[in-house]
């Protein structure tokens, strides 16, 4: 048996912590613990059942120590891989490896951030880079804006097409009671919002909220006896291409090409087999890039693909059904929420925003400045 096995591990419990603007003096670890408690309730397991701990947050360098201490547990497997917002997809793969090897039996992946309450500058201190910082790029926005400028130049992508991504995310958010944004959004409102780093206005950029959550995984065998239908990990893939935007090989092609290819191969699925798409929309250009690089449309066609209602509720392809980082929540590292939403969609728990009859979902995480890409494909028991 080589590598991760399709369907060998499953997600059995998911929960968000408080989101948005949390109570004063809540810490990121408070939010992680709240997510863990709710996720345990979601699957009916107890704290003492957890022997694998994976977590990451920008506000705590050794979050694994802090969370283990807070929960009063001493896990046999611990992993605090931190590669940006995609970290939690790496955690899925690492947790599955640990489960397959018998290094732990029940793994919890957790995240928490109070970046809205404490302020982004304090929550996420940027490293000084002598080759970038002197030019005062407003990171991460400027990095993604540079990528957007290249996509517009090479493929004719327009600001209106970027805005269509934000408008679509808002349509989904209005169906999600947990979403931060409660008002409709138009193309004109996106275009005329405050300019941040051209071509992005505030509405092209993700929210700045507090938030956290937890995802609990176990082996497929153990999952079958629990109270909710297990959601199986069918495929995993990863790619790291750079750390800083000035070192990105091609600003119009992300590592999602590789991570998606690996995940599809392991899952024995193709883009057309995916019923629900959750991808990391830190900025409007992300949705366009990842739809291209994950094979939902040809390279360069992403702008045209998101026009005309293709990715809105009841459209041809359900994308970011929780409202995304653009309209639902974005506490700084967003990947865990893609996994939570994908799981809930496949369980049929999404109420007004439910995608009927979905059996497969992609949760695609992005980290840094398009730096790390990680694709997880999930499926119901029918897909095994």
């Amino acid at each position, binding site marked *: 048996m080589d590598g991760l096995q399709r369907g060998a591990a499953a997600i059995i419990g998911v929960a968000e912590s408080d989101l948005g603007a949390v109570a004063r003096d809540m810490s990121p670890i408070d939010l992680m613990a709240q997510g863990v408690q709710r996720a345990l309730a979601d699957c009916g397991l107890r704290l003492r059942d957890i022997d694998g701990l994976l977590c990451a947050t920008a506000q705590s360098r050794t979050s694994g120590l802090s969370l283990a201490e807070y929960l009063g547990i001493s896990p046999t497997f611990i992993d605090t891989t931190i590669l940006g917002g995609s970290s939690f997809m790496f955690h899925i793969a690492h947790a599955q490896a640990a489960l397959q090897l018998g290094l732990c039996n029940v793994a919890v992946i957790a995240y928490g951030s109070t970046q809205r309450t404490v302020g982004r500058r304090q929550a996420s201190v940027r490293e000084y880079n*002598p*080759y*970038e910082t*002197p*030019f*005062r*790029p*407003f990171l991460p926005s*400027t990095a993604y*804006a*540079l*990528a*957007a*400028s*290249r996509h517009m*130049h090479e493929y004719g992508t327009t600001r209106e097409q970027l805005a269509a991504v934000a408008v679509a995310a808002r349509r989904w958010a209005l169906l999600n009671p947990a979403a931060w944004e409660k008002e409709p959004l138009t193309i004109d409102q996106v275009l005329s919002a*405050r*300019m*941040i*780093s*051209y*071509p992005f206005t505030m509405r092209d950029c993700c929210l700045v909220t507090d938030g956290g959550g937890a995802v609990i995984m176990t082996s497929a065998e153990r999952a079958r006896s629990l109270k909710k239908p297990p959601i199986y990990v069918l495929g995993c893939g990863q790619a790291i291409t750079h750390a800083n*935007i*000035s*070192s990105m090989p091609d*600003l119009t092609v992300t590592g999602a090409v590789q991570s998606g290819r690996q995940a599809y191969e392991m899952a024995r699925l193709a883009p057309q087999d995916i019923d629900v798409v959750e991808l990391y929309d830190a900025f409007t250009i992300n949705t366009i890039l990842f739809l291209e690089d994950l094979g939902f449309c040809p390279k360069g066609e992403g702008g045209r693909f998101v026009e005309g209602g293709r990715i809105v509720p009841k459209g041809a392809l359900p994308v970011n059904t929780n409202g995304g980082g653009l309209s639902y929540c974005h506490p700084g590292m967003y990947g865990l929420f893609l996994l939570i939403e994908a799981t809930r969609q496949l369980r049929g728990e999404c109420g007004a925003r439910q995608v009927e009859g979905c059996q497969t979902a992609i949760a695609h995480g992005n980290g840094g400045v398009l730096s790390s890409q990680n694709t997880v494909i999930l499926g119901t028991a029918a897909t095994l």
Partner: protein
Amino acid sequence: MERITQSPLAVYQAHLEKGELAYQWSPEAAKAVFYPRVISPFTGSDRLEWRMSAGLGTVYATTVVHPREGVPYNVALIDCDEGFRLMSRVEDIPPEAVKIGMRVKFRVHRTGGDEPPYPVFTPVAATYPSPQAGGG
């Protein structure tokens, strides 16, 4: 590799103090290396040569940052002719006038304070009259 007495960054900045844009060349890979490093990312070898750029390049990507306070300014990625890319800004024209594909030339920006100098670029073809000509 012997003990390093002058860091790659220090060498780079010493050249900037002299008005030069330095980069490294990996002879075995026949490729330019930027940012400066102790080993070639292509071969892993510490055989890296320092070279001076002719200072000519092309704008690869561009944006205009709109800070909450202060005037908007340009941030760009420049592909230098020798085959390396760096972040910089294009000056002497309005920030939104910087276009991908524009040919630009390096000059040193001296901060006048404690910070080290850094490279900036200006358009090669004069699309706006220079300040000295009294126009623009």
